[in-house]
């Protein structure tokens, strides 16, 4: 059973607060495509965190991964800073929900899963960047291989 205090949590306020935190390094807010991408992911994470607290199932891996795609390429946030943003969200939600100490501990415990998922996602994103760099190198090698292959065939066809 969700307490009344939770029902009254201002979801919009929480989401906006967190998106602002994600964009803290921007002196001028970026275009809405970027903001709405983060907003959509933030909404899913906030809703999912509440569901987990209520004991329901929630798969947040995709939404957390979306946020991490952004943070993992933001050179102003290190890995620790990126994870801290999730801890900040946890604390802000707990405040907004007016949770007492015991409830707060329970909420933090359920939120841990999201933080672990976030850490995994951050690592995957960084690996993806290097994987893409490697793929480009491999594609260049493939082009070189084709160049040699086609050139030798064109020479042999002229013999």
């Amino acid at each position, binding site marked *: 059973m969700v307490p009344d205090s939770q029902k009254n949590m201002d979801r919009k306020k929480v989401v906006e607060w967190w998106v602002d935190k994600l*964009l803290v*390094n*921007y*002196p*001028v*807010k*970026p*275009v809405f*495509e*970027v903001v*709405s*991408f983060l907003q959509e992911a933030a909404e899913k994470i906030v809703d999912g965190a509440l569901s987990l607290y209520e004991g329901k199932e929630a798969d947040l891996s995709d939404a957390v*991964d*979306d946020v991490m*795609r*952004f943070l993992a*390429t*933001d*050179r*102003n946030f290190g890995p620790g800073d990126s994870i801290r943003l999730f801890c900040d969200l946890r604390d802000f939600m707990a405040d907004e929900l007016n949770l007492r100490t015991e409830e707060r501990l329970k909420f933090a415990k359920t939120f841990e899963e999201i933080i672990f998922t976030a850490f995994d996602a951050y690592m995957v994103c960084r690996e*993806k*960047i*290097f994987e*893409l*760099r490697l*793929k*480009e*190198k491999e*594609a260049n090698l493939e*082009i070189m291989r*084709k*160049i*040699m*292959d*086609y*050139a*030798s*065939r*064109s*020479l042999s*066809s002229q013999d």
Partner: protein
Amino acid sequence: MEEMPEKIEIRQKFPSWREMLKPVKEFEEGRLSYISLPKQVDSEFFKMPFGDVERDFDDLKLPENWKEIFLDALKETLEKNRSFKLFMDICVRCGACADKCHYYIGTGDPKNMPVARAELLRSIYRRYFTPAGKLFGEWAGARELTEDVLKELYYYFNQCSLCRRCSLFCPYGIDTAEIVWWVRRILSRIGLNQRFMTISIEASSRTGNHLGLLPGGMYGAIQQGLEELKDYTGLDLHTYINKKGADVLFVAPSADYFATPHWYVMLGYLLLFNELEEKYGLTITWSTYASEGGNFGTFHSYEAAQLLNSKIYKEAERLGVSFIIGGECGHMWRDKHQFINTMNQPPKHEEWKKFWENPDLGELAEGLRGIRFDNYASGEHGWIHILEFVAALLEHKKITVDKSRNDKWIATYHDPCNVARGMGLIEEPRYVLRNVMNHFYDMPEHTIKDKTYCCGAGGGMLADELMDLRMRGVMPRMMAVRHVYRKYGVNILLTPCAIDKAQFPPALEYWKIPIEVGGPMEMVGNALVMTAFGEKPEDRQFDLRGEPLREEEGEEGE
């Protein structure tokens, strides 16, 4: 109605202008371009001043009098280019450009705002070339030229793709891309060149194309293309290379010879050229000398740009062609539309002059009479864009197409910056796509046409060491693609630019949008019915990727 806040607070998140004058000391990996090696800038074919020294960003090994050389080069640029001088003086820092730059949108770095990027140089200009700056120093927004400032210039002026989206929104029309171009040239005077672009410039100086392909490699690639087309269409096709007396010289970006998905576009070119020759007698030749439409020199310096594009008019004259068709390349069109005729003399041979006195294709092939190049967006300097050309062929009903051959594709179109903003070719590619396929959807209006978002990898930014920057720079474009992917089920992103075709596959992968990348000429090639060869619409079984055209029917049949 929302409640009014009790107190309105204005928070300044943007650093003050005096703060902005302090050079950054930390240069992030993923955004810092590698510096050229001697083999790229001190070769027999491409020599830059002080290019014989191997440099590291921590130790620039600058020439002793670097400051004097820098300021002399800046002075010369100011004196020779009135637009540049104007851009140094006129900015009022209104900030209209700030959130229009993809690199700012992507990185959130204040110095990536076009206004701030240009200010990095303006502050030096004020210090050394204006009375106020000389007298009042930083109070007048001026700063000394130091090695730290120099590093900052290299760092930020190599975080711009020269896409010119900012200039579209500038009330004064300040072209930050032009400022970037000149700064890169000035930096090259003291030995600071960006590695990725000089690899291609050196290769193109040496062999005629960015890939460094020798004639045999190019010949072999085109031959391979014809063999693949035989498999897909059953037709015996041919093409010309270095043919003297051909009507047209065709110049493509060299990536089309080998890279994927560029390759499918090349197959499209070959089909079209065969149909036009067989049906109308129009002969089109490739050249192993002018084997590159792109020009990385246009990202680097005037001299490099001039060196690379000089070969094409020379080759047009040597082969005696009447005009040139250019393929699917982005910056090629900035170069060919805006630079080439001021850097090199157009061909002077008889066939060229005669054709351009009355540029009606009927003068070369009677069946094509009525297609005139007088008012073409791309035709100004003897060059015709392949898509503008195809649009005309479709408009005049000179080729037959079967749209249903592209029915498995639901496409959207990305306007390359230099084609849309640089040349104004906006409706023609869309006209072509609507005529060769049934499912085409544009991305939101503010992200396309002259306002198009950048791919994040042009202007020399396709370097792998800049992958972080590229993935953030492309983010706005990717979000717009994501929108049409969700709304219409788009499954292919089409773009007539070789750099886009290289940048979008990793970008789509990173931003988790599972769609393909291709070029409009691939769709034209699929839809083109080779009537001159007796082909009927239903005859074609495979698309240019070698996949069955009618997958569902085939599966049901089984």
